[in-house]
């Protein structure tokens, strides 16, 4: 993992200027990871392992990592979902239960062990198979693997990039409130916006994946 070009930047430095209710929401998220109420212990173990591959955080101490599984659990338990399903997909709650079981199933079929027990390389291989719809397992007969994988990634993203630690590493100042932005023109940086310490263009990543096949969790093999 390359270090973020915005080292030292922390959107929370501005938090005292946010609208009170926005600050409340964000700090509540920081201080209170929800209880697990939807998933079983085993599902949590599997999902934790998956999350570590979808958005690896090995660069952070374990206690500094952005928690993701508890927030997904909360969304499903409270049915705080977007409400609709594709005709060939089950409702959200079923999709997750089935999908996690399916990933374990594929792991066992390929490597004879549950997903959580595999090493990172094998985990990536399993996830790539699910992404490409080439995963083994009974579950995938009734749950389109590629679509579930898409859902999985989207949801992990929405939890990770809702966290100030994620905002910090991408140089985004977070809730622009109450003040907005003034240097809006191309190439301009506002005083409360960080400047990258070095260039880290994503051009190669785009060129290598333009067909949408994805890096497949190669963990930085492109660089």
């Amino acid at each position: 993992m390359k270090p973020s070009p915005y080292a030292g930047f922390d959107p929370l430095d501005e938090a005292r200027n946010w609208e009170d209710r926005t600050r409340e929401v964000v700090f509540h998220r920081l201080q209170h990871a929800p209880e697990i109420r939807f998933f079983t212990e085993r599902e949590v173990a599997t999902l934790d392992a998956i999350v570590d591959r979808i958005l690896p955080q090995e660069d952070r101490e374990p206690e500094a990592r952005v928690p993701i599984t508890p927030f997904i659990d909360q969304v499903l338990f409270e049915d705080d979902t977007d409400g609709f399903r594709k005709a060939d997909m089950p409702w959200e709650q079923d999709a997750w239960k089935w999908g996690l079981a399916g990933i374990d199933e594929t792991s066992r079929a390929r490597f004879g062990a549950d997903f959580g027990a595999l090493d990172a390389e094998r985990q990536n291989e399993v996830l790539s198979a699910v992404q490409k719809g080439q995963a083994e397992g009974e579950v995938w007969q009734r749950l389109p693997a590629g679509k579930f994988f898409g859902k999985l990634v989207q949801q992990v993203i929405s939890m990770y990039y809702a966290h100030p630690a994620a905002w910090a590493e991408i140089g985004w100042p977070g809730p622009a409130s109450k003040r907005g932005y003034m240097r809006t023109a191309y190439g301009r940086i506002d005083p409360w916006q960080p400047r990258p310490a070095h260039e880290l263009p994503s051009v190669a990543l785009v060129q290598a994946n333009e067909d949408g096949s994805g890096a497949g969790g190669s963990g930085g093999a492109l660089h």
Partner: protein
Amino acid sequence: MFRDRPSRTGRALRRKAAPRSHVGGGEWSPPLRRLRNELALITTASTALLWLDNLSEHYRGGFQRKLMYVPIVANPIVAAAGALTVATGGRRGRKAFGLLSAAQTAVAIVGFVEHQRGILKRPGSNTPRDLLFNAWYGPPVAAPLQYLGLGLLGLMASAPQSAAAPVLDRVPVDRLMRAFTALNIPPLWAEIGYLHARGSFQNRAQWLPVVTLPIAGAASVAAAFSDSSTARIAAKAASGWTALLGAAGTGFHLYGLHRRYGGYGRRSALFNWLNGPPAPAPMQILGLGLAGLAAERAGAAR
């Protein structure tokens, strides 16, 4: 503070300087001496306020070009010389003030050219109809000309008698100032006009300067050619109204800041100051109006 009569030390100083003064071509009459002090005060105050305005604007623009620092650095030096001139009743700093004011006119012209270049560099400038849009959100078209006006005013406040006398012999000071007022109004009017248009004249008071400044300008032009008492009344009215517009405009702009999201609240005040209606800007026309009034009083004493 400026004084009607020189202080004791002032008199002492002047006695020493008297021979040189004679070489320069004589003494200022008391009304003119007073006018010069008043003009120095107005110029200094306007320059300081313009600095605040200018700093806000160039900061908002991120000092994207090094040139943008020039007026920010130069302005306080001019203002300091002006302040010294005012504080000493003209005994110290006047010469520096004059030279610096002359330099300021150069800054103004460079700034003016650079602002036009800034506008022309924006996207869409290949179609003339986008020029207005680009002027709204590019560097303000005529803003640097305010430095030109203040530079000239500073020169009037500091020119040696020897240099001023030949001019003043031909054109009395009040008529000179009427012409100066008339010259200052068009760029100010244009600037106010297109910026108030950007604000969609959402408050009807935004029309006031746009509609009435040309009348004040026309009155000043006409009055510049006449010594009649009607001309004096017209010029006084024009300058008085201009000053009033400046004072009221400041009030409106401060109110406009209050109407923005967060208003003067702790978390928003600075942002709104930088992005809302420029609060110090109308003070420039207050200054212009007061200078005109001062000149009329000096002229009346003639």
